[in-house]
């Protein structure tokens, strides 16, 4: 702790190099810029979920609600309030975070499957609001009639709409900030209390940690970052529809986290990359692409319960 270990830093260096250079190597292997952006955005969502799932030991099946609030927050701000990407992201993140903070006290005393079920239930409430409130949200057709706006920095303005590469780097910068904050928190005394709760809630409680309060904070942080991911997702598509809030979207985040490895920091990003690339490739081949992702997921869970990254780690260790 505190000391810099070269071996431990190596994976971080590799991940960041790959991410920063992505627009250059991705086309060479048949990808396109938006695909890379999707990986980073959904990777952020899965990593945010994993802050709660992998590092606090609490399974949420309702993160799509906050992802969707971030997405609608940015879309509705640009459409109705002010044509500013920055303001839209801010509104999206604040809305998602406040909703999580308010719902938190109602659910943090629940554990395990009860917690998961209630998070789904709350998520569905937001889904139905978005689905039914046609005049404001566009209902089932989604919220259209807006696009991401140039970033106004005062002295200059950056067009993130027309160049996918510029937008990618914009997303990557926000991703880097979010991920750095999460990594920082996990290495702090507060982060160690979360890991303690994951490891043994009873012991954590009898060390004098008010467990419910710490789970609430972890939940709010996790949902705050997932709403940032949702806002970026809406900006990526210049569109948002109620599916972003649907409970199956929450399931996708859980699948990504478990697929990549929820005990490793970068695992969910790897999971998101596998998920997005498989989806992109398979959905152009077959309508039943979800079955193949499902099959792949089952195989990973059966044979590599610690996820793809967990498996690689073990190989390296042995």
């Amino acid at each position, binding site marked *: 702790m505190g000391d810099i270990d070269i071996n431990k830093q190596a994976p971080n260096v590799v991940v960041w190099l790959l991410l920063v250079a992505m627009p250059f190597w991705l086309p060479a292997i048949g990808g396109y810029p938006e695909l890379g952006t999707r990986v980073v955005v959904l990777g952020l969502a899965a990593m945010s979920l994993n802050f709660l799932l992998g590092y606090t030991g609490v399974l949420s099946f309702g993160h799509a609600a906050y992802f969707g609030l971030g997405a609608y927050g940015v879309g509705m701000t640009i459409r109705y309030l002010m044509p500013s990407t920055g303001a839209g992201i801010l509104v999206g993140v604040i809305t998602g975070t406040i909703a999580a903070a308010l719902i938190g006290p109602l659910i943090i005393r629940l554990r395990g499957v009860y917690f998961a079920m209630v998070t789904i239930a709350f998520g569905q409430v937001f889904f139905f609001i978005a689905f039914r409130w046609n005049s404001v949200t566009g209902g089932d057709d989604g919220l259209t009639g807006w696009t991401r706006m140039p970033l106004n920095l005062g002295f200059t303005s950056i067009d993130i709409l027309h160049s996918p590469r510029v937008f990618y780097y914009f997303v990557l910068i926000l991703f880097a900030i979010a991920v750095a904050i999460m990594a920082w928190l996990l290495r702090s005394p507060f982060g160690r*209390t979360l890991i303690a709760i994951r490891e043994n809630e009873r012991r954590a409680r*009898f060390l004098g940690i008010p467990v419910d309060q710490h789970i609430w904070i972890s939940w709010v942080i996790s949902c705050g970052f997932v709403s940032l991911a949702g806002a970026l997702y809406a900006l990526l598509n210049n569109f948002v529809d109620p599916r972003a809030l649907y409970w199956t979207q929450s399931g996708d985040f859980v699948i990504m986290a478990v697929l990549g490895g929820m005990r490793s920091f970068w695992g969910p990003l790897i999971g998101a990359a596998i998920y997005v690339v498989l989806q992109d490739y398979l959905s152009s081949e077959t309508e039943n692409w979800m079955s193949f992702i499902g099959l792949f997921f089952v195989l990973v869970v059966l044979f590599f319960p610690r996820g793809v990254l967990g498996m690689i780690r073990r190989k390296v260790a042995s």
Partner: protein
Amino acid sequence: MTLLRVENVSKHFGSLIAVDSVSMTVEPGELRAIIGPNGAGKTTFFNMISGFLTQTSGKIIFADEDISSLLPARRVWRGIARTFQITEVFPELSVRENLRTAVEVTAGYRLSPWLSQDGDNEVRARVAELLDVSGLAEKADRLVGELAHGDQRATEIMMALALKPRLLLLDEPTAGMGDQETYDITQLIRKLHRDQKLTIVLIEHDMRVVFHLADRIMVLAEGKMLAEGTPQEIAANEIVQAAYLGKAAA
């Protein structure tokens, strides 16, 4: 000043009366043992003191404050630490990380998103000190889940000690241990009691341990207090011998 005063606490589980109006006072610096046959209500009694269970009736006064309805974490903040019959540690963390978490929480850093260099030094020094007392220094960087039962138990006791408790509750500290491990843990408890003047209440089945350590002994049977006194008094008590010690010796 009396440190802990338990007044007529009872615990009912439906129609079962697990603990029936038991009282106990513990003076600072005392080492109190609670003995009794299985199902006597010893652990239930412990759970009410630590806040793991809420009593059906009765009061618990700690350092002149009524703590009867406080949550476990708040009782810890007031100075009550405990271990469990089945060791409760963080198995996938190292001994050092287990202790570090306990030390940080006690130092008031539980919500800190960062630690100053001074704070970090202070935490490390305290962890090193605890490792030293426990004799676990050589195993500090091993995962607790991979250690022998006795070392896991020692880790749990040291985590409780990291909380700087005014009262340490140990629920069967030597349960499931071989002779050497039992001896080591007994020596550790003795050292904490003698050197650090720690007030300890322990539940124990091993009579060698009890008579070796305890200043006073309380005997529970079927939820009621059967007897209370010094080890000599308890050893000479006919009711206790009939109900409990006789069986243990046989």
